[in-house]
């Protein structure tokens, strides 16, 4: 088990490893980052044993680094995730993702009558609670829990 895990994480020269994703959130992360469109190697592991999460997922993306806005998206989909940037087989950055206080253009409003779902408007939410995630739409003012 340990060897396999080691293999998944270490076999990357340049790129990003997203670790400690709750198993059920793995494909959500794949989708919001549009990894299906990434042309280089993407390795997706899920239901791996984890002390912290029970079952976790891990995604390894070769030759790809993420902008802050994308990292915020990861934080919303998988608040427990850690991000490891790798250059030349070395971990250059390792950090816990963090949900920002304002979510700008990250999630859609769940209210079908919200103006952001009618016109082409960038969504904006104030974060009320981070754990569990509770947000309020800047436009329709509806409070919502996107992960519930």
């Amino acid at each position, binding site marked *: 088990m340990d060897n396999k895990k080691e293999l998944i994480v270490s076999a990357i020269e340049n790129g990003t490893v997203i670790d400690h994703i709750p198993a059920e959130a793995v494909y959500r992360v794949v989708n919001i980052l549009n990894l299906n469109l990434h042309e280089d190697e993407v390795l997706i592991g899920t239901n791996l044993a984890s002390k912290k999460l029970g079952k976790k997922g891990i995604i390894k993306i070769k030759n790809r680094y993420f902008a802050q806005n994308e990292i915020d998206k990861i934080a919303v989909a998988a608040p427990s995730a850690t991000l490891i940037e790798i250059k030349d087989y070395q971990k250059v950055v390792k950090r816990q993702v963090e949900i920002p206080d304002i979510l700008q253009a990250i999630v859609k409003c769940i*209210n079908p*009558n*919200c*103006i*952001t779902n*009618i*016109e*082409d*408007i960038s969504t904006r939410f104030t974060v009320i609670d981070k754990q569990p995630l509770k947000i309020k*739409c*800047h*436009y*329709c*003012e*509806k*409070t919502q829990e996107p992960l519930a």
Partner: protein
Amino acid sequence: MTNLKGKNLISITDYSKEEYIQILDLAKEFELNPKQPILTDKVVASIFFEPSTRTRLSFESAANMLGARVIGFSNPAATSLQKGESLHDTIQMVASYSDIIVMRHPRDGAARYASEVSSVPVINAGDGANQHPTQCMLDLYSIRKTQGTLDNLNITMVGDLKYGRTVHSLVQAMSNFKATFHFVSPKELEMPESVKMHVKRMGLKYHEYTNLEDIVPFSDIIYMTRIQKERFSDPMEYEKVKNCYILDAATLQGCKENMRVLHPLPRVNEIAMNVDTTPYAYYFQQAQNGVYVRQALISAIMGVK
């Protein structure tokens, strides 16, 4: 005094308690002297993306009494929206012709978005199920006028407390004035948890009832709302409760002398006609007060008061 010039009014939380009082004081001045042609060089755009004759006439009457010219539309079918023009483009166009925009829109959040697009200030005259802040202001005005104060009152709200945005806003606003709330509704239409939480957080008390008679003698204000049949999943439930929340002159026996009945109008049958002639009926004056409050708002936002 804060300067409200150029300030949008989209949500009741956009204005502070002091700013509310400022508008109420100004409205009082307009009640005493309603015809003040102080905006003769201004254009008020009144754009209604869904019909609401009552609100529109109140705003347009307010603008007219200030001497302003009014442009706009009351029927979205007659506008370029039918041709698929975006709200963004409509607002930009209207803003270029006017000094202030009063807008009503069926979508939640439309007014907030318009205020971000518009080069002139926007007053929200209702955005979907979200906010209708001028209704709340005229409610506050009517409460203060009839009670002589906004502080420490017993406010009873009756009917559809689940979906009624006016009662939600009023609870929020009256929470600034140490009110005690009495919520009277059928189980299915109870006040939402989020509103009750707000009352608790403000350190205030609320009580819930299913029977209106119980609370009549203790109320300073009875705020009636309409119960709509469509809100019930089971039509039998509606039939069972529909008459329990009708206020008639007999129900008012034993009420406080200062008690007044308010209603955002239009009423259907929730207030019997025989209440109209009692000294407790205030809903028609309440609607009239809306004009003064809107005069106050428009002139304050235009920076002439």
